[in-house]
């Protein structure tokens, strides 16, 4: 699902930059960049796979409410994602379908499916600190950003690589830049910063609790903290991840959205 894809994009960046060539030959920038893209794509495939299936818990804490929901999600390629609420009972069956640039919501209480309008895209997704727009945009990180390595070495007793992603001039993203820090070992992400155009941090994502899942070590807890409200957060806790399972296109259709 969405968080996985962001996760994947991040990791893909890490992986491609882990190749020494791109690091030690700065004058071969063009070649390095091309290489980076190839690796990015490889990793993307590796992590997103042809398809995926996850079960996770999302905990949202804002100054007005605390929310705990358990979700099940599927993805196929970059374009199709389906997420369904499992608990609480009141919201069970509520589902979001992303198909390309469109997002559909199914609401079991009224038994209605609506397509999100442009006005709703900036609204929060499922009450979290992610917006509906994030869901659409995260699969486009490769197309929207130009990555470079801004630091490599030791920091805080850890061997890390720091990447800076600058949005391309035509990319429809509001950020000024995205900075990601990963461990050199296994390229596990540590922390990711989103900056506005004035280079102030707008939001922070931290990665914790590394565990073995679906064949590799990964962070299983991801926390998003908005810069203007530091006592709020949205946390994703992964319970189960499966990759490359068989999913038909019909699985991601509107009629299937309603399925309980």
């Amino acid at each position, binding site marked *: 699902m969405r968080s996985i894809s962001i996760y994947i994009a991040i990791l893909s960046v890490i992986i491609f930059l882990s190749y020494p060539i791109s690091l030690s030959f700065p004058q071969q920038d063009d070649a390095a960049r091309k290489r980076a893209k190839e690796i990015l794509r490889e990793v993307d495939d590796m992590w997103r796979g042809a398809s995926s299936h996850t079960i996770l818990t999302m905990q949202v804490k804002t100054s007005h409410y605390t929310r705990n929901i358990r979700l099940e999600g599927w993805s196929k390629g970059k374009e199709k994602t389906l997420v369904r609420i499992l608990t609480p009972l009141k919201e069970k069956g509520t589902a979001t379908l992303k198909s390309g*640039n*469109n997002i559909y919501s199914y609401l079991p209480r009224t038994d209605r499916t609506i397509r*999100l*309008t*442009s*006005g709703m*895209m*900036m609204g929060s997704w499922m009450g979290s600190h992610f917006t509906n*727009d994030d869901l*659409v945009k995260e699969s486009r990180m490769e197309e929207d950003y130009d990555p470079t390595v801004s630091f490599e070495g030791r920091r805080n007793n850890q061997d890390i690589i720091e990447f800076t992603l600058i949005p391309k*001039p*035509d*990319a*429809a*993203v*509001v*950020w*000024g830049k995205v900075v990601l820090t990963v461990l050199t070992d296994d390229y596990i992400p540590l922390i990711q910063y*989103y*900056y*506005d*155009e*004035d280079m102030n941090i*707008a939001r922070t994502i931290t990665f914790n609790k590394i565990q073995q899942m679906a064949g590799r070590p990964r962070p299983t807890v991801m926390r998003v903290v908005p810069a203007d409200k530091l006592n709020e957060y949205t946390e994703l806790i992964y319970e189960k991840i499966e990759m490359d399972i068989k999913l038909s296109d019909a699985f991601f259709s509107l009629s299937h959205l309603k399925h309980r």
Partner: protein
Amino acid sequence: MKLGKIAWRNLWRRKRRTLITGISIGFGVMLAVTFTGTGDYGYTNMINTSAIMGLGHVTIEPYGYNQTPSLDKRLKKTGQIRERVLAMPGVNDAIVRITGQAMFASASKTIGGMFMGIDPAQESPEQNLLIRSLVQGEVFSGKDGRGVVVGNKMAEKLNLRIGKKLVYTTTDVNGEIVSEIARVTGIFKTGVNEVDGGMVLLPINSVRITLHYDAQDATLLAVIINDQRYAERMRDSISLAEADPQIEVLSWQQTQADLAGIITMDRSGNYISQFLIGLLIAAGILNTLLMSVLERTREFGVMMAVGMSPRTLFMLVVVESLWLAIIGIVIGIIITAPWYAYLYYVGLDFSGAIGEDYSAGGILVDPLLRIRLYKESIIAILTGVFSLTLLAGLYPAWRAGRIPPVESLKAM
């Protein structure tokens, strides 16, 4: 006939009375001129200002757009339509624009609003209020590119400055959600909060690409005409020339019904007030004329005895009332002229009373009270004065003709 001269002399036999009545008519003229003139100026101003806020005096739109605006409705081949309309007499300009709703986002916030896709080559500060109200930076230079001009309130809310980017999200012609980036090239301030906080200008070709429109597609053609009073006539001629079931041609009265409503109501209120005052003055005239007739009963009696017909006496009084009207108008012009000149060239400044936000019916109100009298209004006022005075004179004239000679000699 000599009637005119006699009537004139009769009037001036009672100088004071004639003068007072004349002054009251003159006063009525001044009133009518002031209220009609300031009204006309004000309305013309409001109409012209609102015309340059986006829709023009006459708007050419896709059929049904006025009722339910949406981005899938568009005009085709606007370039050709524009050329044809520009060739029509009375047309000052015809501007092609795309308008629609969108969400505008920066890293800090998202707000909803409207965009206007324009071609800077077709636009100018005279024809586009937003361009006229530019306070910082400038409009983007061409119809392509990633420039955007925003209002100062939006810039505040989204924390934007010249050069900073914003992302706008809208729905394209196929109903798909699309997003694009744009960088602020200029900031405007109109004083109307809704506009300053919710409208942006974008280059029209960029908008076409974003919305997946064809090269010549647009939402509307705003037609600016030389004289706003002919708006409905222009609409009809354009409608005839561009007969196409997909197209609708509307006048500002239809696209801005609220404004039309306010103007009509204000004008009616104005007319009713003027009518009442006119009645008042007519009463005064009636009083004067009647008194003058009654006190000349003897005189008229003698005239009839020596052979003057009642009809001639009737006409005599009627001519007297005509002279009275003319005297009144002359006095009116004398009183009004300096006052009119002042209002015409200088005007009364009410900006202190109105304050910062000048919107009414959604458009700007000019705080300066000035005057502008159209030919039609002048004719109307003159006609009004003459008719009222003549009307007031009818009864006395009739009385004059009715006086039986013998009775009159017994006079009061």
